[in-house]
């Protein structure tokens, strides 16, 4: 796939920014493509994992941060495991997602994924632990188009006692709320 990027869009300090935040040295990548070859989700991505690294090297900030790829990364860590230059690619995806969210650049086509993360963390913030049923409920309310897809599995889980109506509140849930407050991005 041909990608056109003009030099005036490039942010030359992007690689440095990423390195400062995460300690990941993207300059080490020599584009062998091993990360992409082993990525189980590459077939769904708009850019291949090695292209995302190239974007960061070149300073193509917007391309990297608005890609669907960073959200589709399943964090299986196969790429990091196999990289001959020890570039932590899976961990790089974490940093890119973080910056992408902070700047409101998350690709709307992967809204299901970002909404899921939000619903998951809201449940932890509220109770200290995941309350799967209520997390599921929040996610489905926010993404009504996904409501039908679990109509078979959901009730079966309930009948087998694999979902509980009672949230699992911990004693230190106020401490958890303070953790969330203090970790809010500035």
């Amino acid at each position: 796939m041909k990608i056109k990027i003009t030099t005036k869009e490039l942010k030359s300090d992007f690689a440095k920014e990423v390195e400062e935040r995460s300690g990941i040295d993207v300059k080490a990548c020599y584009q062998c493509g091993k990360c992409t070859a082993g990525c189980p989700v590459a077939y769904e991505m708009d850019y291949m994992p090695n292209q995302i690294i190239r974007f960061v090297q070149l300073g193509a900030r917007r391309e990297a941060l608005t890609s669907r790829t960073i959200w589709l990364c399943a964090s299986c860590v196969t790429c990091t495991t196999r990289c001959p230059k020890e570039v932590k690619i899976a961990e790089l995806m974490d940093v890119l997602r973080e910056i992408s969210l902070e700047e409101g650049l998350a690709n709307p086509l992967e809204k299901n994924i970002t909404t899921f993360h939000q619903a998951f963390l809201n449940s932890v913030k509220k109770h200290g632990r995941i309350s799967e049923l209520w997390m599921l409920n929040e996610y489905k309310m926010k993404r009504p188009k996904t409501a039908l897809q679990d109509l078979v599995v959901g009730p079966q889980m309930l009948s087998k006692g694999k979902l509980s109506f009672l949230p699992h509140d911990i004693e230190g849930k106020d401490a958890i709320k303070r953790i969330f407050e203090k970790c809010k991005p500035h």
Partner: protein
Amino acid sequence: MRIGYYPGCAITKGSSSEEYGTSVLRVAQEIGPEIEEIRDWNCCGASSAHATNHKLSTALSMRNIGIAEQDGIKEILAPCPMCSQRLIISQKDVQDDEKLKKEIEDIVEMTCNGGVKVSNYLEIIKNYCMDEIANKLKKPPKDLKIASYYGCLLVRPPKVLKFDDPEDPKSMDEIVKAIGATPVDWEFKTNCCGGGFTLSRPNVVLKLTNDILEGAMEVGADAIAVACPMCHANLDMRQKNIEKEYNCKFNIPILYISQLIGLALDIGPISLGINKHFVGTESVVNAFS
């Protein structure tokens, strides 16, 4: 020695994979080790925290480590590989970065030095229970071929987790052998099942799990053994969806390795939570009688 128990959200009572927790605890009663739940533990934040907020992910994990340290716990069993991976990575991150350590201690309002050993379930069995399994083996199965499925998080990233071979792990196969079943050689031991995408990107999960189930079928496995609640949920609870999507029939039972150990020790299937599975497990249970 007392080992701290960090079940994590997915395997506690009333959760999607409670039978993993049930069977881990039941088996520990028979063959040890002695375990004690971490006081007032909280969720590690799993993928949703580390994928969106590194500091939050580290803080959530480190609160648990701080509590364990206060209670004098030196080793933690975290049967969920997502939890064990997060607890290990977070400790390494604070140990490598003094500034981050101070910041995290301020956030969680306690000291956390980060020197607690965190072990996954396979490690605990391998390190403490192999002799006990040999001594108490009552019902080794007849002709049961098991595909050991490790998934991602038990072995990756290998530089941090330092557990088994990331491309061809053997520890679960050794346990399978120890209970008298036959481990099969197959190619999908550490392939990804799609993990947490089961709600947000089910199509990805269906494709990846279809590949894994096909791989197990090809080598004639009677069942797949897992040690991860997400792997189990995707392979077991989603199996009907996979069959429908790809117009095929698998009907492969998916069991936690703890349940297989339990069956070989002659613990009743119900007290191992085997009745909680979606795909029928009678063929496996019968092989043990």
